[in-house]
């Protein structure tokens, strides 16, 4: 039995697929059933496109396409007529960001600091070197119609999608297909419609890239490699990945960024290679809409607004972040923010945990300011135009595919339902039972044995009915679009008599049979006399949405308005100049236009804001030579040499540690790559301009640096499953360095040779472009810069053997190491370091947290200083960074350093080693006004930074901080009240509590340079313990 059933179901499906026009080359099993599919939809309100609505119009379709649309259009004779009175017809929606019909992806874990290494791609065949570059994927070749998924999209009003495999950094091409349940051949609208990219390596199990900046570098190098590959370099052979890459460059280039900062990162990659991406955004762009607008990109917006949090447990709420609460409130304003910014955008169902939320979230976006016109365009014309298929879909115009939806009313109204979704001229029912509104007044006639009775029957909301003959009888009804059941009761209590009726509907005429209380059968008919008229909407008019303000950064202690540069006069301070003047008592310092303009006694300036600094100490801002804050990723541990990666590509301004460190007097931080590999990445110097964006944080005009590392971390001593990545010893580390610089030397020579040849080219001949012969190599390029003293090394280092080895390699290749950072055994080879000319940046008293720091001593800094090195105290740690003044003071205790020299270790000396001592590091006329006013001697444990100024702007002020704490608490309380009200509302409406989620603690990801065993509060996650680096998370 079961077998037969299965067979007939399969046969039915086949039959379904063959109705309409059969595909010419395919065999028909049975009798051909060719149909023209001519339909005329009359009396409809046709919304042709977002701008054009035609009342009382007719839509004619034939053979899956629109033939005519408009008022007074002639109805063809062979058309099936569908009366759409009171109905609306819209072009069906287009989702530009789906993986509809794509095979499932096997997710792999990301980089684990302690885990095993996979250095090469696992992809077999003539493909490229990196598993995350999957340009060879052609979505049209792996696309399979999946009707259950199609139905879930059709039910939301979609008729066409762009689909691609959401996996990898380069993801190949996308396919445009309709959601018809037909053979793939018939539903594909455009087989290669787009080319896709992201910053997430997806299923790639290859170690590289393991970081945001690594993903960016891999993309940049891929553009370069693909261009180079066009010359068919024999050294590369056939590379199908690059071939495919090149072939798809003229398609729309779509980049999945998912976050405001990632949008900007993607756009910058595009700018570098002359590509304007269409950017798949997240829901937080409203937080930086002006930066996002400056990209001038088209955007694809998801509607996965965060679900409200359940805030009824104060202990759980304790760990909820203000930023998460604010995002809950403001995320629905995201589409409106794009509209207001004048950006072109599409909407997608992508990222919704529950597809069914699409309609509600779309209405919410409209409630929060998105116009209905833009919403319509974003779902129809815009995606069609971007994909070059507006001639086929996206509006109701003759010649286009018959992809449209029939609705009960205006599409964006909450009460409207989608009745039918027609794809390529075929009907897919959505909520057909709602086509007819059964409610209304009917004439009901029953006939039994010649006797007939007539009732006036009224069907009302909620399935109640009344039947009036002489008396009014109460009853019930149910209607499913075709079948109807009715019943009414005479009398009350035990003597009540119930009559039941059932039948079918044929439009407004119903008929059926019934049975009364005494068991007599009868027949009945009913016809509608008057449709139900809803009472005027008594609902309260909707309150305009009230929401909080965006702060910069979007975090607790962020400002609604950024603090401004002021003219400031510090009066009567003890000024630690770090210059030959030493410490000046009762001295004034005048700051103007971001610079220190005057130092002296009895200064005055009528325009200045005067700060009484009597009894207080003024110093230059603290400079942290070794920091890992404010970055989306820190370690690219995928390979031993990653000089191509750049911290500057992934600066993350929404880091509370910027503010916390300002409170410790820090004004400049050198954000270093981690120490996972020998040649790490390019560093980024930033100023702690709290609230600035990623580019504005950067310290302008500073020499570029790069991070190197030696010892345990780079030989992966802590790898839990053994190390397979060269090197495994300090011998190997030295050879990684020598090899890298040898390759860089050869590279430089090859380029130079080509340049020389080019310069000798005679007139009329064209010179060979060097990069068409030599592959431009971002990794080697950075090393060439080092050899040419255009980029400088800060090298993580501990033991004396490796310190000496590093210096000797540098000398062999004609350059010097600029800084040894950590350098805990520097005191053992300080004389050699002095001779080499390297600076030292170290910890004050950390030791024994691993084997290579067994001989670290707290006199290290002082001994190196006495030997004549420039010595700094660094943090490498978001917590310690706010006490660098006190960490420096430990040299007084442990080795008798003078107070002034100690202070220089966290101010002037790091400025020197970073080559910025002409701008910062001391209190000197002409230098940047990066100043700290301390409550006490800055080297004392009792000293607190009262005000911290960067470029003459006070970014931290202890008095203002006290106000901000109150503001943070008040804003949090407001949002919690709002959530509680939302929950009460949901409960009152019987909404079952709505879609409330359990409060999510606000975790912070912390980056350190290997493991120091230094703890950071409860809610921090050490980045090295992250199994998966999820790009959008931080």
């Amino acid at each position, binding site marked *: 039995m079961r077998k037969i059933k299965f067979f007939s179901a399969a046969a039915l499906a086949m039959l379904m697929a063959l109705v309409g026009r059969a595909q010419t080359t395919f065999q028909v099993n049975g009798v051909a059933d060719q149909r023209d599919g001519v339909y005329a939809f009359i009396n409809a309100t046709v919304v042709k496109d977002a701008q054009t609505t035609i009342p009382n119009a007719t839509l004619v379709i034939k053979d899956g396409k629109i033939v005519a649309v408009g008022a007074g259009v002639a109805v063809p004779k062979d058309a099936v007529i569908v009366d759409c009175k009171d109905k609306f017809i819209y072009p069906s929606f287009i989702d530009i960001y789906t993986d509809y019909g794509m095979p499932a992806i096997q997710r792999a874990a990301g980089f684990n600091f302690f885990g095993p290494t996979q250095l090469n791609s696992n992809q077999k065949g003539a493909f490229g070197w990196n598993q995350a570059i999957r340009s060879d994927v052609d979505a049209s070749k792996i696309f399979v119609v999946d009707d259950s998924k199609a139905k879930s999209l059709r039910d939301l009003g979609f008729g066409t999608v762009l689909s691609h495999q959401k996996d990898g950094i380069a993801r190949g091409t996308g396919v445009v297909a309709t959601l018809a349940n037909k053979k793939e051949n018939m539903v594909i609208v455009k087989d290669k419609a787009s080319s896709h990219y992201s910053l997430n390596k997806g299923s790639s199990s290859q170690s590289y890239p393991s970081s945001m900046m690594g993903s960016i570098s891999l993309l940049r190098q891929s553009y370069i490699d693909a261009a180079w590959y066009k010359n068919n370099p024999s050294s590369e052979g056939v590379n199908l990945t690059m071939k495919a890459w090149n072939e798809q460059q003229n398609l729309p280039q779509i980049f999945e960024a998912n976050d405001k900062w990632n949008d900007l990162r993607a756009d910058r990659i595009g700018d570098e290679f002359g590509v304007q991406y269409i950017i798949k955004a997240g829901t937080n762009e409203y937080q930086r809409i002006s930066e996002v607008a400056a990209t001038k990109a088209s955007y694809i917006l998801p509607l996965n607004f965060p679900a409200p949090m359940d805030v009824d447990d104060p202990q759980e709420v304790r*760990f909820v972040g203000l930023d998460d609460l604010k995002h809950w409130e403001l995320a629905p304003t995201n589409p409106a923010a794009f509209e207001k910014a004048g950006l072109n955008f599409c909407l997608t169902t992508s990222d919704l945990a529950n597809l069914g939320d699409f309609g509600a979230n779309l209405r919410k976006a409209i409630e929060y300011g998105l116009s209905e016109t833009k919403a319509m365009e974003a779902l129809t014309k815009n995606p069609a135009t971007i994909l070059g298929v507006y001639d086929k879909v996206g509006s109701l115009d003759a010649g286009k595919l018959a992809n449209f939806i029939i609705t009960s009313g205006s599409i964006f109204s909450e009460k409207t339902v989608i009745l039918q979704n027609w794809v390529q001229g075929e009907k897919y029912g959505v909520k057909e039972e709602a086509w007819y509104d059964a409610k209304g007044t009917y004439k009901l006639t029953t006939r039994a044995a010649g006797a007939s009775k007539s009732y006036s029957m009224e069907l009302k909301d909620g399935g109640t009915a009344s039947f009036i003959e002489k008396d009014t009888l109460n009853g019930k009804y149910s209607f499913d679009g075709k079948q109807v059941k009715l019943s009414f009761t005479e009398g009350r209590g035990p003597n009540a008599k119930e009559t039941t009726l059932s039948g079918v509907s044929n439009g407004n005429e119903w008929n059926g049979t019934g049975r009364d209380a005494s068991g007599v059968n009868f027949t009945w008919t009913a016809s509608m006399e008057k449709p139900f008229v809803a009472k005027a909407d008594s609902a309260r008019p909707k309150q305009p949405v009230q929401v909080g303000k965006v702060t910069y950064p979007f975090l607790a202690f962020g400002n609604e308005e950024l603090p401004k540069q002021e003219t400031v006069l510090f009066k009567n301070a003890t000024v630690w100049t770090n210059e030959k003047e030493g410490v000046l008592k009762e001295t004034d310092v005048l700051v103007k236009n971001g610079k220190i303009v005057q130092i002296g006694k009895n200064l005055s300036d009528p325009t200045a804001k005067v700060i009484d600094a009597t009894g207080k100490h003024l110093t230059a801002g603290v400079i942290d030579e070794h920091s890992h804050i404010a970055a989306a990723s820190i370690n690219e541990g995928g390979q031993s040499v990653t000089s191509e990666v750049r911290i500057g590509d992934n600066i993350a301004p929404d880091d509370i540690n910027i503010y916390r460190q300002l409170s410790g007097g820090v004004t400049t931080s050198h954000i270093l790559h981690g120490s996972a590999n020998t040649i790490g990445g390019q560093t980024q110097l930033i100023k702690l301009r709290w609230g600035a964006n990623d580019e504005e944080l950067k310290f302008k005009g500073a020499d570029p640096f790069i991070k190197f590392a030696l010892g345990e971390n780079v030989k992966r001593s802590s790898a839990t499953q053994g190390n397979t990545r060269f090197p495994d010893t300090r011998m190997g580390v030295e050879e990684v360095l020598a090899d890298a610089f040898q390759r860089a030397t050869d590279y430089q020579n090859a380029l130079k040779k080509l340049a020389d040849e080019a310069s000798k080219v005679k007139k009329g001949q064209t010179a060979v472009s060097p990069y068409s012969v030599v592959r431009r190599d971002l990794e080697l390029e950075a090393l060439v810069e080092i050899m040419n003293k255009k980029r400088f090394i800060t090298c993580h280092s501990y033991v004396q053997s490796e310190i000496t080895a590093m210096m000797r390699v540098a000398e062999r290749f004609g350059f010097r190491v600029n800084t040894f950072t950590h350098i805990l055994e520097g005191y053992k080879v300080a004389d050699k370091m002095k001779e080499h000319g390297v600076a030292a940046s170290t910890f004050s008293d950390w*030791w*024994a947290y691993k*084997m290579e720091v067994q001989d670290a001593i707290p006199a290290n800094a002082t001994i190196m200083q006495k030997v004549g090195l420039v010595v700094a105290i660094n943090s490498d740690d978001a917590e310690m960074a706010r006490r660098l003044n006190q960490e420096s003071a430990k040299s007084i205790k442990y080795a008798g350093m003078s107070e002034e020299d100690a202070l220089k270790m966290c101010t002037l000396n790091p400025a020197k080693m970073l080559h910025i001592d002409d701008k910062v590091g001391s209190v000197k006329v002409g230098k940047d006004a990066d100043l700290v006013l301390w409550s006490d001697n800055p080297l004392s444990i009792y000293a607190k930074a009262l005000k911290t100024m960067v470029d003459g702007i006070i970014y931290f002020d202890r008095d203002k*901080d006290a106000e901000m*704490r109150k503001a943070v608490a008040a804003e949090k309380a407001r949002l919690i009240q709002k959530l509680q009200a939302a929950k009460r509302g949901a409960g009152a409406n019987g909404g079952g509590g709505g879609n409330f989620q359990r409060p999510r603690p606000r975790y912070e990801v912390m980056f350190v340079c290997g493991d120091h065993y230094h*703890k*950071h509060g409860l809610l921090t996650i050490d980045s090295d313990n992250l199994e*998966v680096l999820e790009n959008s998370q931080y």
Partner: protein
Amino acid sequence: MKRLFLQLVMIGFLVVSAKAQETVYPAPAQKETVYIVNATIHVGNGQVIENGTVKISNGKIAAVGAGNNAGSDGKVVDAKGQHVYPGLILPSSQLGLVEVPPVRATVDSRELGDINPSIRSIVAYNTDSKVINTLKSNGILLANVYPDGGIIPGSSTVVQLDAWNWEDAAYAMDNGIHYNMPSLLTRRGGGRGFGFGAAQPAGDPIKRALDDIEESKVFFREAKAYAAEATHAATNLKFEAVKGLFTKKQKLYIHCNIVKEILVAVDFVKEFGFDVVIVGGSDSWLVTDVLKQYNISVILGQMHDLPNMVDDDIDQPFKTPSLLQKAGVLYAIGDEDGNTRSRNLAFNAGTAVAYGLTKEEALTAITLNAAKILGIADKTGSIEVGKDANIVISVGDILDMKSSVITAAFIQGRAVDLTDKHKQLKARYEHKYGIN
């Protein structure tokens, strides 16, 4: 009247290069009476005596008072201009159990199993750890050493830091049982993105934690019943190990931080009548009323820490001590930031001064309060007559790194050698470069 002061200074600074760490000897028992004179004496209980004298004999503090009261029956240490403090007490540490954290062979702090009350930290305490002397030379003379791992990892012992072996070191043996509260903090969703190797087991982790806690209570209930009967056919070492909790000879140190966990800790007072100490307690400031009501004291784990929450006051960890102080909760400041960094204990207290404590309150938080919490206040924690002469002399304010230079220390009246590995390496390379 010999001038011992110079000699002490010499031990501290000059003689170092002549000795390797292996020849830094624990000091022998005190024979001769010592007078520390002309000092500013910080008693540890809030009191400060200017220009005072401390008399030490037979390992005890024999007299404390203002003025120069040196007798002729002993050595005189002239501490003019210097400050005298009670020996600092590190209230919670794994000193001597862990040498180099990532090197497994040097780690003796975590035993296998969840309920291990009979495990004793003291038997693995390595008096030859290179870390110990670096703490001692910063004025830390006593430390409470506890084992970790599982829910009930075992008992802690207070050690003095100048000993030949662990039996010599033991100052208050097995006087606390430790309890690691399973975390009641919701973790970030679903395991993805937040793994420590293994995948999170299914189900509600909070519920699982509460089940684990209940299981541990079952252990204590049975232990209590067991203790009520004197003789047993089968002796249960685990039950035996916690007997002292029921008689309050031992305290229960509950390691936890958030309010929910602290509220669960109260159960151990209510149901079993234990003396409970919260260790960690970063959110303890939110429930000071509860702590007072149940006489629960707190050892703050780490002052130099980031706030628990992004939204928290940026200096919350720094000001937590003053909040506990104002509320009248008995608390000590600890420093569990790795054994080696514990030498910053005094500076942790110094930071608390910048954020609301008085200097003497801060000192109490690392001396007398710690002694009270550890149950050794009858023997130490302040410079009071009859107590062990555990005393530190500093050139300047011990709480401030710019002036905290320790010149001498006495443990049970013994003038201890303040040489450590770091001073030796410093001397070695100053020798190399001819600098000083």
